[in-house]
């Protein structure tokens, strides 16, 4: 069998085939919807980025304020020399009922 001839013949057959250029119904609408959803999904991370940046900034300022408060309480000298400080007063108040029971005859 002449293969070159067969090849030529089959290619000639392929050339005669009419191209089918039908497009499915509303294909362009489908592509547009797909593109719109992609664009929207690209916008969403941008909004998320803004939130993340803002929250990080506020976290940094919160830490700064906490450190300043800590430093202020650490370095501020005690105003009164008495030992009746706040913790002592709290303890006395909380344990007052127990003390009363102990003192009772």
């Amino acid at each position, binding site marked *: *069998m*002449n*293969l*070159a*001839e*067969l*090849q030529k*013949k*089959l*290619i*000639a*057959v*392929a*050339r*005669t*085939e009419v*191209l*089918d*250029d*039908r*497009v*499915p119904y509303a*294909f*362009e*609408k*489908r*592509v*547009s919807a*797909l*593109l*719109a959803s*992609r*664009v929207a999904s690209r916008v969403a991370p941008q909004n998320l980025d803004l939130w993340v940046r803002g929250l990080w900034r506020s976290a940094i300022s919160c830490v700064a304020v906490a450190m300043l408060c800590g430093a202020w309480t650490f370095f501020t000298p005690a105003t009164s020399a008495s030992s009746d400080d706040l913790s002592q007063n709290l303890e006395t108040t909380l344990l007052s009922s127990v003390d009363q029971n102990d003192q009772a005859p």
Partner: protein
Amino acid sequence: MERTEAELIAAVLKGDAASFEPLVQKYSPRVFATARRYARRDSEVEDIAQEVWLKAFDKLKSFRGEAPFEHWLMRMTVRTCYDFLRGHQRNRESSFSELSEPENDWLERFVTAPEAASDNADAAKLLIGRVMEKLSPSARLVITLLEIEDRSVKEIARLTGWSVPLVKVRAFRARAEMRKILAKMTKDKYL
């Protein structure tokens, strides 16, 4: 008033995605016709076309407007079809023993009287479709563009992104590959 292609493209680049729709509507028939040369199933053809348009939207910034939009789009279509062929190479495993009766009859007719075998026979169309499916992706692309669509080597180089010498080499190999497939097919049948 209807907007020109350049106006539509400029609008899309400015962020108006809706302006892309008229372009999709205008050029989809060409994209579908090209995709049908490489894929048989409707779902595959549709996937290719959709992929082409998504790529076109994403890469629209790279369109400089020096050549018509259609040429730029067809380059993208051909390359997407090539990617599709490379991704579906397993489909080439079928054997020629599954030839239908009309296909066998056409081959018989060709063997006895080559000139009597008609060019328009549906069986011959099925046969060439089968042979094309057996070709490697690059061979199928080259045979389609060079032999069936009758494009020049330069044009193929532009469409595929290959160099001119590479197209020539691939065309030579593609013809040899096709002859090998035909030899196997006729050997299966007549020896």
